[in-house]
Structure formats: C-alpha cells, structure tokens
C-alpha cells in the first residue's frame, strides 16, 4: 500500500511531516558535523587573515557581522516563501518552517545589530546612527519579534498560521529596502562589497575567510532550522495526543 503511494509521489507528498521527520533524523547529524567543521575552518581562517589597511584589526568583526546580516535577510526570505506555501498550497510544513525560523532569524538579526554596533564605535565613533541601513535592519528585528509574538498569542496553529503568513508577506517590503538602502540613501554604512556587479571589491585575503564563515553560518542556520522544525512538529504531536488523551479519558468514564 505505502509502496504504491511512494511511486506516484509528487514533490508535495515528499514533504509530508512524517517523511520530513525520517529525513531530518538521518540528515541532521551529518549537517551538524559539517557545520562545526566549516565554522571551525572559517574561524581559523579569519584569525589568520591580515588586518585591513583602512580599518585595521576591526575588520575581523566583518567575518561575523556580514554573515549575520546576510542570514537575517535570508531567514526572512525563507519565511516569506513559507508564508506563500501556507497561503497558496496550504502545506502543513510551511507553517512549521516559518514558525521555527522566526526566533532563529531574530537572534541573527540582533547579532548583526550588535556586532555592527561594536564595529561602528571604533570606526565611526558612535554606537548607533539612525540612518537608512541601520534603521531598516532594526525594523526587521522588530518585525521578527512581532511575528513571534503573534504566533505565540494565537493558540490554534491553523489560525495563527494564516495571520502570521499575511504579516510576514506584508513585512517583506522591508527586505529590498535593507538591501538597497546603502545605494538609495546617503549613509555611513559602506555599500555592498562582496556581491556586486563587476566583481568583488574586497581583497582575496579577506574574501576567503568571509566566504567560508558565511557558508558555515548558513549551514548553522539550516541545522538549527531543521532541528527547530522537528521540535515544532513534536510539539504539535504532543498537543494532538493530549487532546486524544482527554477525549479517551472521557469515553472511559462514560462506559
């Protein structure tokens, strides 16, 4: 019976929660191991990297700041895709994915803000300025918190899924604003130097550690995200089973 189903499986079948759980259980240890390895290498490389002629040793902060900032936007993009999945395909995993991603995204955004602040103090002489880039990232952080608050405020997962998905979609306008704020407005924050037309402006001795760190943190994100999704699925199973327990206890007393 189950074999015939799997033969005719569409991609959407593949992503049902039970299969996701089997897949995650098998895949997570490897992913976790790889993450540790890449992050360790990246950390070592960034320790070895030379100082920047302009920014001196503080350029080391870049090796974590840029990946955090990148992840804060990537996580939100993933949540937006998940929101589409919830609204368009009503896929059960989409909501789980969005809900699991939000706290992780919030932590990465907070770290991007904090490390940026710690970089800005020696370079610009101030912890914080209210310019377009910094403000829009801070708004992103607030939106993560808002989304978390909304998911927690509504008990019923089906209802909270839709409300959260709509909020996430509306908030996505902020992502291009963050991305292009450095080009559109005049700000203290330096423009993008890694990913840009006409090649990177950054020296290879700094670029390589940065890339490895970025890959490492991205892997870390996916490891954490997958584990958090697993937790969320378990949490929902616990809730469902508790309801069953209450109902079956009711039936026993009636008999």
């Amino acid at each position, binding site marked *: 019976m189950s074999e015939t189903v799997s033969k005719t499986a569409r991609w959407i079948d593949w992503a049902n929660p039970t299969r996701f759980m089997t897949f995650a259980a098998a895949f997570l240890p490897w992913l976790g191991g790889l993450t540790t390895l890449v992050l360790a290498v990246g950390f070592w490389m960034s320790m070895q990297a030379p100082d920047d002629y302009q920014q001196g040793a503080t350029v080391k902060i870049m090796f974590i700041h840029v990946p955090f900032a990148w992840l804060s936007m990537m996580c939100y993009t993933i949540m937006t895709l998940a929101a589409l999945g919830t609204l368009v395909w009503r896929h059960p995993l989409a909501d789980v994915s969005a809900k699991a991603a939000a706290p992780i995204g919030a932590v990465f955004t907070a770290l991007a803000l904090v490390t940026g602040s710690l970089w800005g103090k020696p370079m610009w002489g101030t912890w914080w300025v209210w310019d377009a880039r910094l403000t829009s990232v801070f708004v992103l952080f607030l939106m993560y918190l808002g989304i978390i608050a909304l998911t927690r405020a509504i008990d019923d997962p089906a209802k909270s899924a839709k409300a959260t998905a709509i909020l996430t979609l509306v908030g996505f306008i902020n992502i291009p604003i963050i991305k292009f704020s450095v080009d559109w407005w005049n700000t203290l924050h330096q423009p993008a130097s890694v990913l840009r037309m006409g090649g990177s402006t950054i020296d290879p001795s700094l670029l390589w550690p940065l890339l490895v760190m970025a890959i490492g943190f991205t892997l870390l994100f996916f490891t954490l995200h997958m584990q958090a999704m697993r937790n969320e699925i378990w949490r929902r199973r616990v809730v469902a089973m*508790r309801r069953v*327990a209450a109902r079956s*206890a*009711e039936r026993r*007393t*009636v008999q």
Partner: protein
Amino acid sequence: MRLIAENLAGERGGDLLFEGLDFTVPSGEALLVTGPNGAGKSTLLRIIAGLLAKAAGQVRLEQISGGFESLTAASHYLGHLNAMKPVLSVEENLRFWGSFNGQGKLSIADALERVGLGDIGYLPFGYLSTGQKRRASIARLLVSNRPVWLLDEPTAGLDKASERQFAALMQDHLRGGGIIVAATHLPLGLGNTRELALGAAA
C-alpha cells in the same frame, strides 16, 4: 456547627430579589435552593460566601469546628466558573489552590482519583471537556478542607455517571459533619436535605 440565616434579604442591581429568609442548616445536612432563573439563587450563595453585601438580616456559622474564624473562611465556593487556568495542568491548578487554601485530608492524586480524572491530571486544564473541567473543579473542594460547601449549579455539564459520583462525594462530606448549600434545579440525589424555594410566590 450550624449555618443560620435570619431575616436575610438580597438585592442585585437595586432590585430586591428576596427578603425575610430564615433557615438553619445543622452539620451533616444539605440545603437545596431551588427556584426559577433570576430568583436570586446565585445571589444568595454569594451572600453566604461573603462575596456580596446583604441588603438586610444576617447569616452566620455557629460553633465552628476546625479553627475557622468566620463563615467565609470556612466555606468552599463553586460558582459557574471553574477558577482554573487553562494553560496550567490540572495538577498544577490543584496544587496551587491546595497550598493557597491549605492542605486537606486528600492528596491531589487521591482527589483526582475520586472524581475520575486520575489518569489525566498531567494535561493542561484547557484540553479538558466541559464535564471534565467541572470534575477537576470539584476536586478542588476535596483538596482543601472546608466544612461548608456552597455550590452553584454544581452538576452543570456533568453526565449521569459523574453526577452519581458527585452525589457520593457530597454524601461523604455530609457524613463527615459538613454542610452543603446547593443552588440547583436538578435533584442532587442526596438523602437528608432541606429545601428552600426562592421566588415561589412570584
């Protein structure tokens, strides 16, 4: 121990609901308060509990046993609402009321066993059905020790089997020298009861 009301009058929102009530309930007996909706059953119970001011007369408990200082302190009140938090488990709820109101003879596990919820005490209260919630709330009466039980529609939401179970619990309480005042329109299945019909004249 006797619960005595003399010339008791109660009002709600300026309307006099009843007046000149006189009754005595000795320990070991139950008083059934009956009457149509709006006759003042709940108001009477809340006055006895000390939650509402009486319009006239007095109500008191004489020869209180067990070291309670007043009628209010010696009373358990089971109103329409269950006074339980949906996000906490049944056991957590009962443990709180147990330590807040003072521990009685029964442990929480025993009390839950008595109301037939022994195996689902670990569930959050919000997951329970209406009848189960009511039974968990009845278990609260067993966890802390109070000689006077003031019950407002105690069997609302209970099925026949649970009603019988609850009747047995009330019998036990009366046998132990307790007093029950219950507002209800259903017979509770108790033996030694007096009846007080409110609003019969109207």
